[in-house]
């Protein structure tokens, strides 16, 4: 699946976009965050407090327990500050 990162999540991870191929044991958004944290220092920093990071699956807001099965695009970002 394609992963997108925005704002300070992007800066900490060090890339805006990448392809992810998580193992089958990674089933939810929360699992994916835990798996990403092991990928390196930047990821560990970005997902240091998982509750501070929001996620979207195929461009729809998703909670930590949401299944990533069949998802084409996952995005991680801080709480929104538009408007």
């Amino acid at each position, binding site marked *: 699946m394609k992963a997108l990162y925005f704002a300070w999540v992007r800066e900490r991870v060090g890339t805006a976009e990448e392809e992810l191929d998580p193992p089958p044991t990674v089933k939810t958004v929360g699992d994916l965050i835990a798996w990403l944290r092991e990928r390196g220092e930047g990821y560990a920093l970005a997902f240091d407090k998982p509750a501070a990071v929001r996620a979207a699956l195929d461009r729809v807001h998703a909670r930590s327990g949401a299944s990533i099965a069949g998802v084409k695009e996952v995005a991680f970002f801080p709480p*929104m*500050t*538009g*408007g």
Partner: protein
Amino acid sequence: MASVRVQREDFDPGAEAGALAHGRTDVGAVVSFIGYCRDEGGSLAALELEHYPGMAEEEVARAASEAEARWPLLGATVIHRYGRIAPGEQIVFVAVAAAHRGAAFAAAEMLMDYLKTRAPFWKRAIRSDGAVEGWIESKQEDDRSAARWSAAAD
């Protein structure tokens, strides 16, 4: 029905609001809101707005659909800018048309509350000395403001 635009360019709020009522006789009220880039301490050079292309438009459209399901609206326009925006410049525009003002006021307020808390935009402050100050933090006050609409729906 709602017109949703996410763009770098500025917009003409008078023309946008007027267009909602132009050529029709059933519109009794158009409520519009303009959000500006504000410099609180005199040290802000600009805001840099990042967004999630695609989702930003879709999320605003979802909020507009919720507003349309809730109030009898006759039209809505939402414009949100991204990129570098200087103090005094316009950032966001919401206008809602309805037969009566109550629905138009309420829907415009709900749309703004949802925009602030659910639309994927992030602001970063750039100071006058050129330093990047970092990402603006979300406000609990905005979450509480947005939560009013879901609480009222229960």
